[in-house]
């Protein structure tokens, strides 16, 4: 991220991608067809990847495109098409007015709560000097600082992740297996 007064193109692209992400998310929750919804969600995730790059997290941006928009959403689309969820009884899944009003109130309350929280000033001694992250990326590349932290401070969590993934693979296979060929 450039320092000092942000250049216009930076702010412009930040807001552009942010607004596209929010609009796609709105279209995502209002689409009736699961396939259309999934494609709008992919669009949101691409815009979020762009925001990550603008926030000096280039590697996470790439991972976002590969893992979220690539792998996870393809699995979702695969399941939607495997189960053939396009027929009317599955598509008409919007809840009634009561639920929508409730959801609106819950949403407004959450928004108010989150906005109150974001107004809290963070003490300056907790914050890095501005531009530290950009300097680190300029010096060590986009991956090295992340890798150093991941493989030293967070090594245990990283190793535990492998167990989690193994469990998830086995669990998914067991759950999705047909009952007839069990045992």
């Amino acid at each position, binding site marked *: *991220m450039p320092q000092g007064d*942000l250049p216009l193109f930076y702010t412009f692209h930040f*807001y552009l991608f942010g607004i596209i*992400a*929010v609009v796609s*998310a*709105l279209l*995502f*929750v209002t689409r009736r067809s*699961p396939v259309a*919804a*999934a494609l709008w969600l992919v669009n*949101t*995730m691409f815009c*979020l990847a762009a*925001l*990550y790059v*603008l*926030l000096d*997290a280039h590697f*996470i941006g790439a*991972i976002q495109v590969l893992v*979220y928009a690539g*792998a*996870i959403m393809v*699995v*979702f689309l695969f*399941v939607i098409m495997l*189960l053939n*969820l396009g027929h009317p*009884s*599955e598509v008409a*899944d*919007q*809840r009634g007015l009561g*639920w*929508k009003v409730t959801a609106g109130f*819950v*949403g407004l309350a*959450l*928004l108010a709560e*989150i*906005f109150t929280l*974001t107004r809290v000033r*963070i003490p300056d001694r*907790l*914050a890095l000097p501005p531009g530290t*992250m950009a300097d680190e990326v300029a010096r060590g590349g986009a991956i090295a600082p*992340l890798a150093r*932290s991941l493989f030293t*401070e*967070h090594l245990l969590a990283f190793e535990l*992740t492998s167990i989690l*993934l193994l*469990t*998830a693979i086995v*669990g998914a296979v067991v*759950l*999705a297996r*047909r009952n007839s060929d069990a045992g």
Partner: protein
Amino acid sequence: MLAESLFFSAVLFVIGVVGVLTRRNAIIIFMCVELMLNAVNLAFIAFAQVHGIAGQVFVFFVMTVAAAEAAVGLAIIIALFRHKQTVNLDNINLLKG
């Protein structure tokens, strides 16, 4: 850009919550949960810029957990669909007393 990122993050999270509350299709609700995870990731990345690289490491773990969750959750949905021939949550009420 911390304030702007948190703004977008909050809006995306709330859209996810509203989606969970207003839809009945299990897969769409699941995708709304993914949207909420993404919103939190955006907040983490924005904080990582101010407070150090740990935020990005957290996002890395959140993505791993989301991938595992998607695999297991979709397997559960497939199993449910085999059983009930529907993914409409109003028809899946085995635990209702």
